[in-house]
């Protein structure tokens, strides 16, 4: 197969994929290779000594939750001694925003790509402010985590069962036409999710717990994000491992490095130092407080959402800075580095063109345009939370390294 034919196949498999939020299960029961001490994280593989503040904080919180330790010092000991098994979530069909920490006892969303029989997993979204994924691990966070896993998760699981699963792809397609971009702006999609769930929650649950659940999902603002991320990964994974394809199937950051995976280059990561984010800060914070780019949420850009869909979500510029014109230009620019357009995700402001789909490493290197990522800015000190939002781009180095590897791929 020629490169162009391989890319066509890759895109075809992604386009025909689905994303159905079908269940909630415990991580150790569904995520492959979960041992007693597995700690999965966002982004490409990274060793403890290179992990940034928020990630270490999240791991501390997870270890406390699991009962493996009770202080950051103890957690550090576990990490340094090699007792904890770290791995990229991406290697285990899983995904998570910011530090993206997943440990065995956590409940995870199960999202299914029904066309290709692929299952992917993500934890439940905790909300905004002082949360686990930003490295917070105080009592309040632990209490919330327990409630989410022990009470909210089972309720949601029953509701999902009754609903027969929720079609996330359809919600995404609708939300795109309501001003969401599904990465930083999820107002419409979160509301649509709640609408889809509410009758089932009411049918399976008792009034107080249902009210609490609805309130939580609503106030969390981006509750749907984790499920959409898992769904996006499931769709892109269907396009992975196609020989001779130059399409990017994953774009992920761990706060230390950013990495990409390319369909025709198997499981290899091509990494570069994680960039800083250009954006607007919440009052009291500035660039000196910022953590480098982090999280698996750039999977949304990879599937044509997020900044790629910004033309349909101009309101997001209030959050990340810029103008409405800039929002349009960003989407137009992303068409320059992709090989196709999404058949389901359409943008009214661009005459209903499908969003840019299929980042091609050749086009990135040729044009010098790297995928733009809309993202939150985390505080580099663990536990503070989000301190702003803005834009960054995947480093060119990832793409040039991938290109070099691709040219050499047949000569080993």
């Amino acid at each position: 197969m020629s490169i162009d034919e391989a890319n066509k196949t890759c895109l075809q498999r992604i386009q025909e994929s689905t994303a159905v939020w079908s269940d909630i299960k415990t991580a150790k029961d569904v995520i492959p290779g979960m041992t007693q001490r597995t700690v999965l994280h966002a982004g490409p593989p990274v060793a403890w000594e290179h992990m940034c503040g928020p990630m270490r904080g999240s791991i501390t919180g997870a270890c406390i939750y699991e009962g493996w330790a009770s202080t950051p010092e103890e957690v550090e000991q576990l990490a340094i001694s090699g007792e904890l098994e770290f791995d990229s979530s991406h290697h285990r069909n899983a995904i998570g925003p910011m530090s993206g920490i997943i440990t065995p006892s956590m409940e995870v969303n199960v999202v299914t790509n029904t066309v290709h029989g692929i299952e992917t997993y993500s934890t439940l979204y905790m909300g905004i402010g002082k949360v686990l994924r930003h490295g917070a691990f105080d009592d309040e966070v632990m209490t919330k985590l327990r409630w989410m896993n022990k009470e909210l998760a089972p309720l949601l699981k029953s509701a999902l069962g009754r609903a027969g699963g929720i079609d996330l792809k359809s919600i995404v397609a609708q939300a795109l036409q309501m001003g969401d971009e599904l990465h930083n702006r999820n107002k419409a999609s979160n509301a649509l999710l709640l609408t889809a769930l509410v009758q089932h929650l009411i049918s399976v649950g008792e009034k107080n717990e249902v009210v609490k659940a609805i309130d939580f999902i609503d106030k969390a603002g981006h509750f749907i994000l984790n499920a959409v991320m898992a769904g996006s990964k499931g769709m892109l994974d269907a396009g992975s491992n196609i020989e001779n394809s130059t399409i990017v199937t994953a774009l992920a950051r761990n706060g230390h490095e950013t990495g990409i995976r390319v369909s025709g280059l198997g499981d290899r990561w091509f990494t570069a130092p994680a960039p800083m984010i250009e954006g607007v800060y919440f009052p009291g914070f500035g660039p000196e407080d910022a953590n480098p780019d982090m999280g698996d949420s750039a999977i949304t850009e990879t599937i044509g959402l997020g900044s790629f869909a910004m033309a349909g979500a101009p309101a997001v510029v209030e959050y990340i800075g810029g103008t409405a014109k800039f929002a349009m230009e960003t989407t137009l620019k992303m068409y320059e580095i992709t090989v196709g357009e999404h058949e389901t995700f359409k943008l009214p402001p661009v005459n209903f063109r499908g969003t840019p789909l299929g980042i091609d490493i050749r086009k990135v290197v040729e044009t010098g345009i790297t995928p733009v990522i809309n993202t939150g800015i985390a505080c580099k000190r663990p536990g503070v939370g989000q301190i702003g939002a803005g834009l960054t781009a995947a480093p060119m180095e990832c793409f040039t390294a991938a290109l070099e590897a691709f040219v050499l791929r047949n000569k080993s």
Partner: protein
Amino acid sequence: MARSTHILKSSYFDSVVLMRVASQLKKQDDISEVAMFMGTEGNHDLLAQVGLTTVKSREAGPQDLIVIVVADSEERAESTTQDALSMLTDRNAGQDNELDYRPRTLDAALGFLPDANLAALSIPGEFAAREASKCIDKGLNVFLFSDNVALADEISLKNKARRKNLLFMGPDCGTAYINGVGLGFANIIKSGRIGCIAASGTGLQAVVCELDRLGEGVSHAIGVGGRDLSSEVGGLMTTYSLELLEQDPATEVIILLSKPPSADVVEALEALCSEFSTPVVSCFQGAELPGNTFIQTATLDEAAATAVCRVNGREHVPVPFNLPDRISDLLEERGNKAAGKRVVGLFTGGTLAKEAQLLLSKELGPVAKSFEEHAGHIVVDLGDDQYTIGRPHPMISPEIRTEKLIELAETGDLADCGVVLVDLVLGKGSHLDPAQELVESIETLRKRRELSAEIVAVVIGTPEDPQDIAAQISVLDAAGITVFRSNSEAARYVAMLAAPACRENYMKEAS
């Protein structure tokens, strides 16, 4: 003297734009140097060559802009740097209210204009061939303004285009007219019945302006690049263009302009044209071919006049001067002041320079083409590569000519100069007021008594051109400059000034 270096990271500006801004800023009295370049290897070498490199400038990468200003004081250097940057960014500011997206890839561009049929390329020569190749792949005809394209690339591109029945104009094609639309540095002329094929540079401009002056118009003017008629390229695009014009219903006469073609190519051309019903008027810079397939002419003006006569069913009889009375008046006035003295020609148009050299050398003996040979007559093409390294072409920025004049005056090389011959080529893309520019420096030199020569100027342009040709001519007149619209007439006149012996011949022919 204070120098400032500023780096603007991750930007890209076209070198022509940078040079325009730089030369504008340099005009101020207290600014002695403004250099604006992208930080490519080649440009770093350039800066080193001219002694402008600084530690800071070396930090610039190929995607960074370097702005170096040398001024009388630090504040002036700083403020000028700021001016430079705002002049560059102001260009984009006005468009902020409208979405004015500029595609970065050919695919995206075609998305916006799916039935595009022509790509116009004026990018650095280094990448021009690659880009042109992509355009041909997409079925686009090509207008290649860029120069410094390798011969091997030219050959493969033209073959590729020909196989797909696409026109490939260039490389180094400055001007073309397709269906009444001027491309590149074009003069505004009438549409009409005469088709042209040319290298194409100022030779084409001179011819179409003359056609316009004679009341005729152009159907199409196709630029084939200066090497098309070499034996390596074999006349690929010339033959294709001849076929197209022969078949074009609007074209009744074809003019073919070129430097002398190689012998094998001539054979092929003659074989082709002998089957034509459309007459072909040729001008090969004075070279004469043995056959009679072409209606051969010796000069650009003769080619234009011959084509005009032909299209009106007449024969053309060439004369040295169209208005001999004016010439004899001028000669009487000027007398023998310039007799036996040096002729210095400073041209912005290469073909015009070449034609002047040929005509002058007939009467005056050897005419040098460069400044190295100090004594004797010189006619220099200031648009030649050696003078345009790191500077804009003199048609855009004629300042280089006045710089050269001043240099020559300072080294005493104008002491024995009797005549200075210059050209002013108007049209889109050319400097907006070349006459004023020239007159100012002439007057300065005259005041300093460093220039006593007569100045003769050829003005190539039409009344529709942006420069207001009538105003340009009157500015020149008022400064005592003798103005011609014809390059060959100007050269003959200059010959007569410097070598009175040839007057009898030219004036006799004229009457």
